[in-house]
């Protein structure tokens, strides 16, 4: 019964091909999922290791205004200078793109980041944030600094 053997052979080949396709797809997709899990693990680990502290003195005043605020640095706009210490367990990127600053709830775009005591923002090192806040009205103000997943708030009086 050659016709039966031929049909059996065709079905066998088809089933093997389909099984190989399923196995290959399964392996590929799980491989992609594993890569994503790896990336998530790295990101989560970095977030956990990130910790900063704003070390500027909120109680230091001159003429009733906190000395972090300079109303006239020379370019016509008010400027707030904050010092931020790396108290985590990893080196942080010292660039304006990696630090988000909010002034009284408003996102500030003009921020410069300078490492004060070294070439990198290593653990224990301090950066200076020069924040162009514009002219601040008298009264209470707050600056929120976000690096990675860590947020710190600095409140002061003008």
């Amino acid at each position: 019964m050659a016709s039966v053997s031929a049909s059996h052979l065709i079905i066998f080949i088809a089933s093997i091909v389909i099984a190989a396709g399923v196995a290959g797809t399964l392996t590929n997709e799980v491989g992609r999922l594993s890569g994503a899990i790896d990336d998530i693990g790295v990101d989560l680990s970095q977030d956990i290791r990130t910790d900063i502290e704003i070390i500027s003195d909120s109680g230091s005043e001159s003429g009733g205004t906190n000395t972090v605020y300079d109303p006239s640095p020379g370019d016509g706009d008010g400027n707030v200078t904050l010092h931020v210490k790396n108290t985590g367990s990893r080196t942080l990127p010292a660039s304006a793109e990696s630090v988000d600053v909010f002034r009284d709830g408003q996102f500030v775009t003009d921020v410069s980041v300078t490492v004060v005591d070294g070439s990198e923002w290593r653990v224990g090192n301090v950066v200076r944030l020069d924040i162009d806040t514009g002219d601040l009205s008298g009264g209470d103000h707050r600056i929120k600094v976000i690096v990675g997943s860590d947020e710190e708030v600095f409140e002061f009086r003008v």
Partner: protein
Amino acid sequence: MGFSVSGSFAIIAVGTFVALGIFFGAASNGAELVTESQSDAYDDRLEQQNTAIEITNATWVAAGILFPEETLVIEINNTGSTGLEINHTHYVVDNDLVTHSEVRSNGDEEVLGEGSDTDLWLPGETLRVEIQDSSVLSTSCPNRVKVISGPGIADSREVTGC
């Protein structure tokens, strides 16, 4: 017919095992990274809990017999239960940051009773810092000084003697 079913099942089973092996490796790596960083973060928090400092003296001394130029003298006591590193200590004088290296270049920094060569500031010891005015401090006769230890625990005090 029977062999094609067995063969297909075998291929799919092998593929499943390979996929599980890849998934297990990635999950295991990710969990290990996260666990390790959580452990480091826990150690940092514990160190902060054990850290305490107190500024016992912040005095502005005019130029004279003791010092050739105006000098800010700060004495800080390590009142915590963990040793600190002097290299990671920062000083904020009227919101001007003075780094450890600036103090060493423009003044003195010593653990009382142990001298200037040590970087260790152990519990119960007093760190004495002298900051000369001329090139480090932007204001003469400052109002406040804040000292920040390595883990981030800080103390502040008003300066006397102005």
